[in-house]
């Protein structure tokens, strides 16, 4: 069986992982309520998409 000949240094491990990261979702502004929302999706805050109410949002009492 093939086995590693030498141990990896911490620096080698860390530099390999330098590119392992998550990127933030890009967001767009809802034209109705000006909250940040996901692009191409109905706004979860006000329920609007393309100038029309798409889903009714329950108001908290």
């Amino acid at each position, binding site marked *: 069986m093939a086995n590693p000949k030498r141990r990896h240094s911490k620096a080698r491990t860390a530099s390999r992982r330098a590119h392992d990261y998550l990127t933030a979702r890009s967001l767009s502004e809802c034209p109705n309520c000006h909250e940040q929302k996901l692009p*191409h*999706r109905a706004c979860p805050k006000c329920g609007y998409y393309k100038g029309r109410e798409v*889903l009714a949002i329950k108001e908290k009492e």
Partner: protein
Amino acid sequence: MRHLKAGKKLGRNTSHRRALLRNLVTSLILDERIQTTEPKAKAMRPHVEKMITLGKRGDVAARRLAASYLMTRAAVDKLFDTVAPRMGDRNGGYLRIIRTGWRKGDGAEKAFVELIGSEKAIAEKQHKRAEARAKRREEAKKAMEEAEAQAAPEASPEPESKGESKGDKE
């Protein structure tokens, strides 16, 4: 290999997938708007468009073809009488898919599927539902108040007679 085989399998065998799509198309025609997952919404689109094309042809043969696909007679009638004429000289693109975010349990992306031109019908439906909900809420409130009013006269004299020595805990 899957080369040139269009469409998604949706994790189902042929008969299951066909039944699912027929159900989706029938529901959409009857309800004008349905909520489903985004892959199902995209998979049903060509089927709905084919049905509407049949509806635009409007002859008896087309009606029978549509009836062999749609699940109910009512859906066929609605397709030929109200849905297809509404589409006018639009060539395809009869559906609108609006993504609404992810389902909590399994992270599936949900979407609304609407027939174009059904905005009014959907708004009316929403309005009716909101009214029914308000009515139900009011009735529940009334019932609760009545229950409280009934409970109060029975409960109130007792604490008063004992209450002064021990102190009210209510």
